[in-house]
């Protein structure tokens, strides 16, 4: 645990030093969910009307798409941080030191998403809570807080699968980062970020349920739509946690395989 906290502290120093040195990144992060929501709303309003959306989905498009953009940002930070870090470390020339250090790769990769994940909680306060409060008053504030809490579970349950897939692909060598560029948006499709999963076919619904954060996203959307009966909320959340625990095994295997590959084949500098 102490080793993990040490890694989190090091990652915090690295990321927050960068964020505060380049305040433009902080500004961009705060603005990003607003831009995405405006973008999706603009596309939707040009294609039709909010009334049709309300009838088909059961929620105001503003609230639904704001939730989607927030969840997109908070979960994408996990995927991006974990999946791109080997490339960044290689470009920065730090990879040989990281690979040859005695720290556990699994712990290191579990610590990597923490700083930007905490940054996404700040976004909950700067984006989601104001939007929900403006739209629905105090009830909206409560719903917003629930969505932020669910996004915490979504991001945490995303770590094992992101590490397993990311490092697993890097172990294969070659142009794995290009494959990651394809898998990254596929995760978003499977999570049903902008298109509710309950509107998918049963087969697609069952398949996407294997991705832990997809279940959390569904819960967040159900809260917004008002379909959140207790069993409909608790069951997917439990499923997400159980799946994440099960996916820790492939996570460890991928991390170990990547480490061994790098130690055996060397690192490009």
């Amino acid at each position, binding site marked *: 645990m102490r080793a993990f906290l040490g890694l989190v502290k090091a990652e915090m120093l*690295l*990321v927050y030093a*960068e964020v505060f040195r*380049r305040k*433009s*990144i902080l500004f*961009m*992060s705060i*603005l*990003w969910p607003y*831009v*995405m929501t*405006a*973008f*999706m709303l*603009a*596309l*939707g*309003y*040009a*294609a*039709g*009307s*909010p009334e*049709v*959306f309300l009838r*088909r*989905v059961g929620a105001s*498009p503003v609230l639904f*798409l704001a939730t989607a953009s927030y969840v997109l940002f908070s979960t994408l930070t996990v995927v991006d941080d974990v999946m791109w870090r080997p490339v*960044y470390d290689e*470009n*920065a020339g730090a990879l040989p030191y990281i690979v040859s250090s005695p720290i556990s790769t699994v712990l290191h990769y579990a610590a990597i998403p923490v700083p930007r994940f905490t940054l996404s909680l700040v976004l909950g306060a700067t984006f989601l809570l104001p939007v929900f409060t403006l739209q629905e008053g105090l009830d909206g504030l409560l719903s917003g807080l629930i969505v932020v809490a669910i996004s915490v579970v979504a991001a945490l349950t995303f770590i094992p699968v992101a590490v397993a897939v990311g490092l697993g692909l890097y172990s294969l060598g070659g*142009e794995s980062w*290009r*494959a990651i*560029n*394809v898998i*990254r*948006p*596929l995760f*978003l*499709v499977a999570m049903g*970020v*902008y*298109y509710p999963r309950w509107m998918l076919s049963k087969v697609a619904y069952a398949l996407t349920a294997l991705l832990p954060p997809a279940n959390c996203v569904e819960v967040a959307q159900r809260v917004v739509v008002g379909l959140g009966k207790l069993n409909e909320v608790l069951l997917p959340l439990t499923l997400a946690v159980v799946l994440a625990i099960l996916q820790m095994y492939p996570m460890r295997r991928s991390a170990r395989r990547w480490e061994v590959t790098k130690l055996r084949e060397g690192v490009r500098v």
Partner: protein
Amino acid sequence: MKNLLKASLAVLRAYFTAELVRSRGLVYGLLSLAVWISIFVVPMTLFSEEEAMEGVAKGALVGVAMFLAYSTATWDWAMLLRWLVQLGVLEYVLASGSSILSHFIGTIPVSLAWYSIALCLVYAVISLFVGPPKLVLLDPVVLAIGVTTLLLVLLAYSLIVGGALLTSGTSGPIVELISWILPLATGGFLPLRYMPRQLQLLAYLTPFSYPAELIRYSLGVSEPLVDTWVAATVGLTYATAFLVVSLVFLRVQLRKVLKEGVKSVALF
């Protein structure tokens, strides 16, 4: 001029070999694009009735085509300079006395090939999820002017963003944000008539709105807010002036790099 063309040809050969022959960059890039487009196009169907889908498909195709053009200018051309910094190649290019423009000129044919294939893929994705877009060529002359204006504007934009990246060391997320806001705010994604009046005015103050409006009109998607020929004349003049300014800007930034050295690039 001869040296510039020779250098551009060498760059083209290098990119062609690296991106299309030696690697699977094209295949992966297209797969990624198809998934991203479906993420943004499919939710549009939640807003529209079944009978309105034909108009949605047409609008989506032109909107995505414009966005792809902006993305190409941002990620292929402007970020090219950042990539040269990351690879440690920029210093050698500058020290060799070769014009940096050779990299832009050499990349354009590869980008255009990628863009054409990507557009076919976008057509297929929209046909699958929304319905086949049925475009009508109303005015080929206006289409030619619109496409020319778009190319000039995007080249100028990429020179300005690329030059700014060189001397500021600005990070990827800022460029990513610009690449989303710009087409959204200047009528790239949506016809200006669907936008608030203040944004319409703002869009017409930039050179970006004119080509988008001209292309939409020529393909029968929507009418421009101002007279078509006024939009064509102002758009083409504005685009040319913008390109001249961008060339001057890039030259100033390169001089600054020669004096101060290359900036380090950010973590993200």
